[in-house]
């Protein structure tokens, strides 16, 4: 269990881009005692100073290293390829971390963070928002209780045209991690499906559409105790955005953005919509819960919702995908390009 401060923590928000403004900052501002000592850190100092002024925050820094000896916790929301160096610096200095997903670009780096957190006796938490969705939590409880019997099949599809307001080219090509939709969206979905399955599945097959750059469509086939799980992810088109979990005694299905309900079918074909007791009114509520938890982790030594250790299996699966990647058959990409070379 992480150590407790028994006082309001001093927190730095490192990286003040789109996700911080939408999710982390509103969560932090709800805690007056945290707000009073909150520090914003971002190399875009001018923009960040404006943000700080709007929120009544006094302290802004361009470099997180300037504040490490004065803070108890850091919310790390820098571009993904910087998660590891920034979080490592924090943890080595005894600063607890709540890191955006993906924790790291590969499992080896993530394991180094986990070990460092243990050595420094501080918490390492990860924002895996989908594990907070009440529907997903209820499904996890149902599956763990054997409500569907032995699981046989899971399908999960999630895709939208990429619209994230990226302010640099670090998402694409070789300039960032060189990893695309699998690491970005897959960090959520591979983690969620593994969590539902109750153990780390084996990778059966992985395909994507990378031609040396960042993949934009990816398909995984996973196996766990006789259950085949298929995950399809896309940055290029809107997919059905649904999931279905089938077992010997029925099935569960739902929409990926529907966080407080799903449909449960029994094996005789009867179906009913299950509405969870908790019904968050907007996505921002998950930011509140996440930050509330992190403040509790710091102040009273509570366990984080999702720890660095929890996400290691999904990062290992993602590593295996990249190591064993095959390319989809994409005849429309080959048709004229072949002629151009010929």
């Amino acid at each position: 269990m992480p150590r407790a401060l028994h006082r309001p923590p001093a927190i730095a928000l490192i990286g003040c881009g789109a996700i911080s403004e939408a999710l982390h900052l509103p969560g932090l501002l709800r805690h007056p005692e945290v707000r009073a000592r909150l520090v914003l850190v971002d190399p875009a100092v001018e923009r960040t100073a404006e943000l700080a002024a709007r929120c009544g925050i006094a302290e802004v820094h361009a470099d997180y290293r300037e504040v490490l000896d004065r803070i108890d916790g850091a919310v790390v929301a820098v571009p993904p390829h910087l998660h590891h160096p920034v979080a490592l610096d924090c943890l080595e200095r005894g600063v607890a971390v709540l890191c955006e997903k993906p924790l790291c670009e590969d499992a080896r780096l993530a394991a180094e963070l986990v070990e460092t957190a243990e050595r420094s006796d501080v918490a390492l938490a990860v924002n895996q928002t989908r594990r907070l969705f009440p529907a997903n939590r209820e499904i996890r409880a149902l599956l763990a209780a054997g409500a569907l019997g032995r699981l046989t099949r899971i399908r999960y599809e999630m895709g939208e045209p990429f619209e994230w307001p990226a302010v640099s080219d670090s998402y694409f090509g070789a300039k960032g991690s060189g990893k695309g939709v699998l690491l970005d969206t897959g960090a959520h979905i591979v983690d969620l499906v593994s969590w539902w399955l109750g153990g780390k599945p084996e990778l059966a097959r992985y395909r994507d559409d990378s031609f040396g750059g960042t993949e934009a469509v990816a398909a995984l086939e996973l196996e766990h105790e006789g259950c085949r799980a298929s995950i399809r992810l896309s940055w290029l088109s809107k997919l059905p955005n649904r999931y279905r979990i089938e077992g010997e005694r029925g099935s569960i299905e739902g929409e990926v953005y529907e966080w407080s309900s799903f449909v449960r079918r029994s094996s005789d074909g009867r179906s009913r919509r299950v509405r969870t007791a908790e019904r968050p009114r907007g996505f921002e509520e998950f930011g509140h819960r996440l930050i509330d938890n992190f403040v509790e982790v710091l102040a009273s030594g509570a366990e984080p919702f999702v720890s660095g250790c929890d996400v290691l299996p999904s990062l290992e699966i993602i590593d295996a995908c990249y190591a064993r990647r095959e390319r989809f058959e994409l005849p429309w990409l080959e048709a004229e390009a072949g002629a151009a070379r010929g």
Partner: protein
Amino acid sequence: MASGRRILITGAGGFIGGRMAEILHRADGVEVRAGVRRWSGAARIGRFPIDIAHCDILQPDSLAKALDGVDAVVHCAVGDREVTVRGTENLLEAAQRARVRRFVHLSTIDVYGQADGVFDEAQPLAYTGRDYGDAKIDAEKACARYVERGLAVAVLRPTLVYGPFSASWTIEWAQRLQSPPWLLAEEDCRGTCNLLYVDDLVAAARLALERDEAVGEIFNVNGPEPPSWNEYLAALNAALGLPPLRPQSRAASHASARLMAPVRASAKFLLAHCGDAIKALYDRYPLAKSAMRFAERTIKKTPTPGEFGFLSRKASFPINKAQSRLGYAPKFSMAEGIALSVAWLRHHGYQRDGFE
């Protein structure tokens, strides 16, 4: 011209610019610089190790940087009138300053207007009051001014470009065909469907980059065998594995268009002025979500009153000039283009497969 050269493609985050970048990147001896207005538009071309540059044609500062070291430009970026006209003027000016040696401008057959007839490159241009075609006429005029100033510009006038990522002629029609009932009448779809598979347009652009005969000239670019709209829609429908179309009566089709017109206008107004409130309703209330999805599907599958004239228009756009001067020869038959398009639709989840 194309070999051993660096080529800037504007609008590389879009349908045609994206395909232009993919093909030229994979051609021997060409270094592509893919110009995107927003980084979020780079997901498709980011799959290739392509040099991606910020290139907003309304921001001359970004153009100087994007054109640094560039030998040729293929101008695919398009937008509202401001983007299409002033943006093209900005790009032409920046290209001339950067001493670019070839500039291929993608225009459209809409510059000929909307009448029936045969339209070769000698036909007069016709303003119609429609933003897209009118703006493209003015962009072509800007190209002509820079030809006089010594810039080596070639203008291509493609017909209806379809294929993977084509929202207008591939995705939307596939979605309508998959959303019964079919609301168009056979008599309304006898017009010419001047289909051009996107890879044939890229081939024409490559010829315009390479051939000196292209400089200062304008070329129609069309596919090999313009079908009727009935033929195209039936072939796409069959390739999607759907039951044969059951066309509506003409009276019912026109009545549905008239009935839906105020609904369409109201939805457009509400989305433009109350988008956030609508999204909140959609997110929070399942009934509102179902109603909005139903309305969206119904609007999408119902013809617009303006569509009837378009689908019955008998117009052809000969490509003799491109054939004789550039050696252009379209390779993709409608059947091949549709087969590739449907494979792409399936891969991207546009073809329903029962998981729903």
